[in-house]
């Protein structure tokens, strides 16, 4: 904009502000101050004045080009929609296999496995701590036998699979490789993701097993193993979703996630890996939360931030190392038990923000998830939500359509700036693992969670059905219920596996694993061998617990 016109605009804007001030004294606005969930001020409106010094090539670039603000591919959804990947899992492998097939039949394009808590924490179903938890929040997997049933009739060379598994990720990955092999699909052909992000477990999710140093060793072993043996696999899904769910705001979500990402890259480089050998297979996982525009800008800011971090801080040369690819899930914590049908709309808008933000993959929550796991009817609505966005409303037809909006670019800049400040602060503390040790991340999350709760209870933050437009209602009667026989069936299956396998072989490979765990060998080959002989998840984790010890939780209260 030429100087003369810029001055004209500034003058006009100043006049407009004065006039509007008068207008507002007669017709007040709904609030004194409008802010995003991260407390960033939302102006009455935005103009070119808000983008002083904005440089398109420097700050946006073309889609598929550095700094990838506009997306990591040149054609994005014009080429291929994001993967519709509904998180699913409950009961035993048979039930979950059926749900997988149902979802694939209804048009989802990728699998996403939810495991039960004993599996996530490395316990077999017959462990005393597994009582009451078997198959409740996800599928129970005790051994390769369960995995074989889980993917029965599902061609692993044709469909990608994401597994939400962290501390025992190496074991589930090994099982997946083994199942694929039995289908005649090589490790080189399979594609998918393991979450494998232990740092966020310590601060936001809680399914840790081993202490940080040992956990990092397992993670970098996986990076190294996959870079040569499983090249189409996302070795980690560095997650902000759970950090957000635990109470963080949008700025903190990406700041803490990217800080964790930095820690993983540093650990891998320290372990002797070249950045470009593993970084192209790092992936991310974000939340799609309530404030529509803030979420869109958050994803764009994250892409630009990560690209610069990888290039400038870590000297990556492969463009793929600089591309932040991510999965998104709509925010579970935004769902209400009250008037659950309203959740359908919440999820729709959240999903739309993720699409306008350029996500690679998306899970939409079901309307009943404040109360139970989704039943078939409600998960169908959730999947159709994505399909309407993709096929009917035209938002997938142009890449990064909101770019250039004064508001969007200004908000993207602000989120980036504030996130960068947090990353600097975490750097000063010595990096994410140290910040976690110190309790800094946990305090930030907790404080924001408390602030948010106060704002809902003071009615400052509206939650329809909870503090506004409340009605008298009975709870839904068609909620998904778990078959009470599940636990018994799983225990019987586990017994069967243990009776039918070659126990001597299992003992021998567990012994080999133990010795390897004491040293510096990459553990993946040992774990693969053990799972193929039907060593159980609990047995393998038991060996590692013996060598590594367990994480001692830090109680910040």
């Amino acid at each position, binding site marked *: 904009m030429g100087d003369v016109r810029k001055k004209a605009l500034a003058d006009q804007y100043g006049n407009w502000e004065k006039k509007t001030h008068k207008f507002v004294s007669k017709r007040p606005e709904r609030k004194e101050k409008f802010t995003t969930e991260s407390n960033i001020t939302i102006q009455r409106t935005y103009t070119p004045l808000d983008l002083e010094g904005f440089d398109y090539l420097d700050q946006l670039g073309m889609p598929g080009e550095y700094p990838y603000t506009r997306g990591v591919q040149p054609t994005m959804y014009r080429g291929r929609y994001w993967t519709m990947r509904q998180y699913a899992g409950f009961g035993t492998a048979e039930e979950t296999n059926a749900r997988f097939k149902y979802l694939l039949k209804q048009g989802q394009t990728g699998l996403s496995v939810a495991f039960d*808590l004993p599996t996530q924490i490395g316990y077999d179903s017959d462990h005393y*701590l597994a*009582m009451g938890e078997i198959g409740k929040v996800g599928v129970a997997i005790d051994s390769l036998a369960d995995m074989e049933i889980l993917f029965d009739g599902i061609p692993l060379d044709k469909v990608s699979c994401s597994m939400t598994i962290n501390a025992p990720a190496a074991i589930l990955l090994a099982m997946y490789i083994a199942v694929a092999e039995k289908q005649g699909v090589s490790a080189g052909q399979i594609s998918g993701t393991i979450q494998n992000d232990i740092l966020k477990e310590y601060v936001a999710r809680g399914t840790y097993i081993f202490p940080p140093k040992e956990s990092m060793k397992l993670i970098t072993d996986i990076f190294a193993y996959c870079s040569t043996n499983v090249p189409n696999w996302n070795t980690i899904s560095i997650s902000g979703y759970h950090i957000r769910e635990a109470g963080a705001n949008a700025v903190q979500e990406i700041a803490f996630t990217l800080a964790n990402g930095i820690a993983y890259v540093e650990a891998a480089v320290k372990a002797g890996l070249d950045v470009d050998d593993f970084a192209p297979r790092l992936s991310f996982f974000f939340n799609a939360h309530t404030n529509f525009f803030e979420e869109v800008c958050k994803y764009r800011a994250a892409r630009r931030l990560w690209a610069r971090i990888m290039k400038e801080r870590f000297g990556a040369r492969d463009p793929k190392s600089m591309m932040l690819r991510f999965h998104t899930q709509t925010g579970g914590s935004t769902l209400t038990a009250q008037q659950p049908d309203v959740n359908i709309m919440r999820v729709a808008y959240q999903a739309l923000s993720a699409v306008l933000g350029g996500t690679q993959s998306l899970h939409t929550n079901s309307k009943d998830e404040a109360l*139970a796991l989704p039943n078939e009817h409600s998960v169908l609505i959730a999947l159709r939500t994505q399909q309407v966005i993709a096929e009917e409303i035209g938002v997938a037809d142009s890449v990064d359509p909101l770019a250039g909006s004064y508001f969007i670019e200004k908000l993207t800049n602000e989120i980036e700036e504030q996130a960068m400040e947090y990353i600097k602060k975490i750097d000063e503390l010595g990096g994410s693992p140290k910040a976690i040790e110190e309790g800094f991340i946990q305090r930030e999350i907790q404080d924001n969670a408390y602030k948010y709760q106060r704002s809902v*209870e003071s009615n400052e933050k509206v939650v329809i059905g909870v503090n506004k437009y409340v009605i008298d209602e009975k709870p839904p009667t068609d909620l998904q219920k778990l078959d009470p026989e599940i636990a018994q069936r799983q225990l019987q299956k586990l017994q069967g596996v243990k009776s039918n396998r070659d126990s001597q072989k299992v003992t021998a490979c567990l012994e080999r694993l133990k010795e390897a765990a004491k040293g510096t060998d990459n553990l993946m080959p040992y774990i693969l061998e053990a799972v193929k002989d039907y060593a159980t998840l609990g047995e393998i984790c038991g060996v590692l617990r013996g060598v590594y010890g367990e994480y001692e939780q830090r109680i910040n209260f």
Partner: protein
Amino acid sequence: MDKRIRVLVAKAGLDGHDRGAKIIAQSLRDAGMEVIYTGLRQTPEQIVKTALQEDVQVIGISCLSGAHMHLLPPIVQKLKESEASDIMVLLGGVIPAEDITDLKKTGVKEVFTPGTPTSRVIEFIKNNVQL
């Protein structure tokens, strides 16, 4: 010395979702109670042991993983065995309506489900605990 209501807030079972438990703990503290928070992965044994050690009047359990029917009755039972049935047991989390009836029959005093304001929990405790 001012006598305060003492509350143990505990995460029972393998569930790692502690946002609610921490918010309740902080709210109760802000309302003038003494609060001890156990952190994650507490067994019924551990919970009762800590409750007795800390001499609390109230135990607030948080459970969102669906394991509540396996965790709450043992807690109530162990309190009974320790002659500490005067300790009030409360539960918060994702609890189906039909389970609430059963839990109350076994001795859980009240169950707080999603959407409950912290003020209601505070009020309930104040109305039901005599120091």
